[in-house]
């Protein structure tokens, strides 16, 4: 609603001053939110810049040496050896490996559960699953990391005979537990936003509930389900404590998910505490942080863009002009 502006009203000058002052304070708090995001980018990015510009840093590491193999053909991450090595490839492979496992397990379970609760479940089951997901979302990631490290790792090793107790499968399952709540929530929102008339129409034409869910509701909600997956991926890539605790933290270059590994986020968490302020290593860790920020930022933008598209679609708006016949 648009109330009259305060200065149009017949109020005392002092009251008008108070009114203006408070409006300014409230307005600036909204700016702080935008500023916070910008400051995060600026202050994390600032410490990453010397990687590109500083000659001193270049004696130890350059973008080229982080990406290309060493003279002996190896890619290794050993920042605190006599000759520090900063190859990002083992960390990248580790990050992708664990994210892949987490999404492979987490996405189907979360989307499946969302379909079940919005399409098939009786009211009682719905009221059991939703609080359970909220409970799962409320478990701090350090507790999931603890569980993965202390309990899950032992179970999985006993069951599958892994050589490495801590590996990408163990950490990936832990990470899936962190991804499931966000994917479930967004996907469930999208599915239940599909108007009931869609379902009624389909059922009236003789389709059963499964056909209605699979051929009508799911396609209608697709942008939202896709958004859920993208936001889940963003969460998985940036999650730190679970991976830090359950990955084994060995920066080995291997595609095998049953070996120990190290991710970008865990590398920052494990190494920044002991690093010399202003050293090449320090700047490399901030570079990793800036990289994580940019990747998750883009995934978030993409996710919310899809959510907006879903809203437009269900309201019957189309961003593309209608095709001429």
């Amino acid at each position, binding site marked *: *609603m648009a109330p009259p502006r*305060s200065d149009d*009203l017949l*109020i005392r000058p002092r009251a008008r001053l108070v*009114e203006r002052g408070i*409006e300014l*304070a*409230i*307005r600036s*708090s*909204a700016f*702080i*939110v*935008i500023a*916070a995001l910008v*400051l*995060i980018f600026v*202050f*994390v990015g600032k410490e990453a810049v010397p990687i590109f510009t500083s000659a001193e840093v270049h004696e130890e590491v350059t973008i080229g040496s982080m990406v290309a193999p060493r003279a002996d053909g190896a890619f290794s991450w050993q920042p605190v050896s006599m000759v520090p090595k900063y190859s990002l490839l083992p960390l990248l492979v580790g990050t992708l490996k664990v994210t892949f496992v987490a999404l492979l397990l987490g996405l189907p379970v979360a989307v*499946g*559960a969302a379909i*079940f609760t919005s399409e*098939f479940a009786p009211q009682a089951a719905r009221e059991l*699953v939703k*609080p*359970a997901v*909220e*409970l*799962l979302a409320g*478990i*701090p*990631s*350090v*507790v999931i990391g*603890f*569980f993965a490290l202390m309990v899950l790792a032992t179970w999985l090793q006993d069951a599958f005979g892994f050589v490495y107790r801590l590996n990408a499968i163990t950490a990936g399952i832990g990470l899936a*537990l962190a991804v499931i709540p966000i994917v479930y929530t967004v996907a469930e929102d999208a599915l239940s936003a599909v108007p009931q008339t869609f379902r009624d129409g389909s059922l009236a034409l003789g389709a*059963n509930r*499964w056909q209605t*869910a699979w051929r009508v509701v799911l396609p209608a909600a697709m942008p939202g389900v896709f958004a859920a997956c993208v936001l889940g991926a*963003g969460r998985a890539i*940036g*999650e*730190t*404590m679970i991976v*830090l*605790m359950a990955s084994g933290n060995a920066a080995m270059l291997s595609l095998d998910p049953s070996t120990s590994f190290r991710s970008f*986020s865990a590398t*920052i*968490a494990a190494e*920044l*505490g002991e690093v010399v302020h202003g050293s090449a290593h320090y700047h490399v860790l*901030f570079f990793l*942080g800036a990289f994580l*920020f940019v990747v*998750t930022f883009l*995934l*978030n*933008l993409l*996710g919310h863009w899809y959510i907006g598209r879903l809203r437009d679609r269900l309201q019957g708006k189309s961003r593309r002009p209608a095709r001429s016949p």
Partner: protein
Amino acid sequence: MTRWIRFVAAAFTGLTGLCCAAILAMVVIILGDILVHGWDRLSWEFVSAEPRVGMTEGGIFPAIFGTVVLVLLMTLAVVPLGVATAVYLHEYARQDSRLVHLVRLALQNLAGVPAIVFGLFGLGFFIQFAGEGIDKVFFGGKLAFGQPCLLWAALTLAVLTLPTVVVATEEALRAVPKSYREAAYAMGATRWQVVRRVVLPQSIGGMLTGAILAVSRGAGEVAPILFTGAAYYLPYLPKKLNDQFMELGYHIYVLTTQSPDVEATKPILYATVLVLLMVTFGLNFAAILVRSRIRRRLRQT
């Protein structure tokens, strides 16, 4: 053909149901395991005493104290800022304005920034920029705030939990009937008078929900405080804003990964995890209760 369709339908429904069952099972297994193993060690001494004998005996009082002080400071910072932002978005701004769109975009993205990046931000901005700046200006270059400490950890968590508070508060503002505002405006109230006397008193519940959810989230986050103030062991409790502190989540992380004797610390570790879960779930539960009351009112209007 119809039999085949019926079979596929049943299989599909069963499979999605299985997904739900899997989620339920995982929640039960995790919480059950922690409850079973942590319960025995839990005692009044455990939550009220200092740790002894290399963390294998005694209690975790300093970690509980540190967590409480940390989240209280965080709340002091995040609630006024979050509520003001929500009031701006819902009461002051024109809904189609570009600024509103930008603020919402920033909030959505802030909620998606990885926790570890907040840790880097806290170190780079609060400690090295703000902290060292304060030292230069007020302490003549002597080290006071240019180091990891309670204040900077709390502010880092405040930035992290800001979206939670804004979203919860805005939901409560939305639940205040439009007619209340119109009645107040009709009697000649100014915008701030309407907000302060009519809208905010009606949305106390939402602000409370936001604050509780933020505290629950903040109490469980470890990555942002790794470099901004948490310490593994301190022989004293934090007294000043620039002291370091012990914290429950950080305590769990260090005990789990760096303990020389995992078997000896295991009972204590489980009990610590249980305490952390009781804190975060207790708070979450309180928030759910308050929120369901607001939602009920939202439905009535």
